[in-house]
């Protein structure tokens, strides 16, 4: 089993490293797929492992995106002028400035959402069930509406992120550069969560999901763990947001940054499609969803969102366990579950 795992990880790693050369036309799409996997995995920390169904992780995505872009610009040029008059035409980043700005911007895009999560976490994570779900839904939309009213970051029209500096290669290099950053971020997210789920942290999250009151009665500081879980999500989602802002090149409050209607729903949908509460579920769900979306979206010709709504209803109503849940039902031995045939028969008879 261990050896198989190593081979699997090796194959995936090689595939990931060579993907931009294997599929040169789809570099940006594959980067997006990696970002979606990160979003689904971090959503699963709340939604799957902890049982707190958050619609608001998009908040950290948007904060990371705006913050990263603002710092990239604001470090070298006046931000207000940039957003006001299409500053990317008047101001140009030199390559050194560009990479310095990106590095500092990404650091802040990770840390600030994590701090925000820690600050609001104490208030919001005390809510349970549907109150939490609707509260976080409100949080994401409120953030989008408020960002749409702030002049400094371009209000409703949005702002552009710094363009790729001239003189160090073309858009192909840019796509490859961002692909590898996304890939590194995915590996970091995956290995961190893989490590954390095996520790006490993962056990506590599952205990909170199964019965929070009992977990608290056992002496676990559930609130502390819930906040740490949200901080972890916010950290990686913020980084992903900063990257997406740079890949897309244009930030708009409701359609791109606080995009509750697309990204915010996608991350929930992907995690459920793959099977929530598992490590690999979100990965599988996000890959399948993105491939399906990119492959068939164009056939819907403007009916994409109708199809999306339909897809949500169908998946949620008829397929709530996801791929991993289905596999688990089918091959329980593979998941380390021992089945007592007599007990199972007795249960079937009881039904």
């Amino acid at each position, binding site marked *: 089993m261990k050896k198989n795992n190593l081979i699997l990880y090796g194959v995936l790693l090689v595939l990931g490293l060579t993907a931009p050369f294997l599929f040169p036309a789809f570099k940006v799409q594959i980067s997006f797929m990696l970002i979606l996997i990160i979003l689904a995995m971090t959503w699963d920390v709340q939604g799957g492992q902890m049982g707190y169904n958050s619609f608001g992780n998009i908040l950290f995505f948007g904060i990371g995106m705006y913050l990263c872009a603002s710092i990239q610009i604001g470090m070298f040029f006046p931000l207000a002028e940039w957003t006001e008059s299409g500053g990317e035409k008047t101001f140009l980043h030199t390559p050194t400035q560009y990479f310095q700005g990106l590095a500092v911007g990404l650091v802040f895009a990770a840390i600030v959402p994590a701090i925000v999560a820690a600050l609001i976490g104490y208030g919001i994570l005390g809510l349970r069930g549907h109150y939490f779900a609707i*509260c976080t839904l409100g949080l994401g*939309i409120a953030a989008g509406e*408020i960002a749409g009213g702030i002049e400094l970051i371009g209000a409703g029209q949005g702002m552009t992120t710094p363009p790729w500096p001239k003189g160090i290669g073309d858009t192909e290099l840019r796509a490859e550069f961002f692909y590898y950053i996304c890939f590194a971020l995915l590996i970091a997210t995956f290995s961190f969560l893989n490590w954390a789920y095996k520790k006490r942290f993962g056990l506590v999250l599952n205990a909170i999901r199964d019965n929070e009151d009992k977990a608290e009665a056992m002496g676990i500081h559930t609130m502390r763990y819930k906040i740490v879980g949200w901080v972890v999500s916010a950290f990686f989602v913020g980084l992903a947001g900063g990257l997406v802002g740079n890949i897309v090149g244009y930030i708009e409050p409701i359609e791109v940054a606080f995009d509750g209607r697309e990204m915010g729903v996608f991350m929930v949908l992907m995690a459920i499609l793959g099977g929530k509460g598992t490590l690999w579920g979100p990965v599988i769900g996000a890959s399948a969803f993105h491939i399906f979306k990119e492959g068939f979206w164009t056939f819907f010709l403007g009916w994409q969102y109708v199809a*999306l709504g339909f897809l*949500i*209803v169908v998946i949620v109503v008829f397929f709530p366990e996801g791929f991993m849940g289905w596999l688990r039902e089918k091959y329980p031995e593979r998941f380390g579950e021992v089945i007592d045939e007599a007990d199972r028969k007795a249960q079937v008879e009881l039904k």
Partner: protein
Amino acid sequence: MDYLIFKAPILMVQASMDGILLGILFALIAYGMALQWGVMNIINIAQGDLVIMGGYIAYFMYVAGIHPAFGIIVSPIIMYFVGWGLYKLVINKVVDRDLFISILATFGISILMQQLMNFVFGADVVVAQSNFGTTMLFDNSVTLPNSKIFSAIVSVVFAIFLIIYMKRSKLGRAIRATAQNARAAKILGVDTEKVYAATFGINAALCGVAGALIAITFTLHPYVGLPYTVRSFMIVIIAGLGNLPGVALSGMGLGVFEEFADYILGTEFRIGAVFMLLVLILVYRRFKLSRKREYLK
């Protein structure tokens, strides 16, 4: 303070009157949400989209040359069947399940309805002119469109009618029995499946009335449904389930809050203020309840 509303105090009267009339309308939508929440334990994210759909029915009557005020009769009838159909297609499969499943399923319905309306009715902001004129108060310094007064009166009439219906009729009694204890109601011969379908239909019909009123007093756009959902959710959690005077009062309070937020923060922050208020109220409630070691469940 540099705000216009503090310079001209008469604007406060204007904002309060507008807010109260608007709030009565919100309370009507919230009443529908409280009904299905109490009976079926479902929070319908598509509530606001049902409202907007009802509004479009009234708008199309207006386009066809009929006075849009008749929409308050036609649109609930159509919306009743829409709600009934939605129940039979989707909701009946999620009634007994995890609450999150129902939230997500209705969220999917919400997206579906938004987009379908976007295709069928177009993405323009539309308004159905009622030509009711306006009433001037206090030396013409406060203007109230008659359509708003009309909508408030109609909301109250419908709410009273529904309350009496729930108290007196056989179906109303069945609905209340199911809300109290679905299993016991079933044992005593209530067809709960039918009751659920009727509840969802009545809720949709209420949304249809509210939508028709919104079509003549405000504007319609396919994507503005979610704020109505959040408003009604907020009203219900402030008032509590089954507290009808509370629903009316907190609806009016929310309306006044919104009008003041509109004047003080600016129109671009209006929706943002509503959603922030939701977050603040929930967090406040959580701290208030956690002092007693009770949880929101």
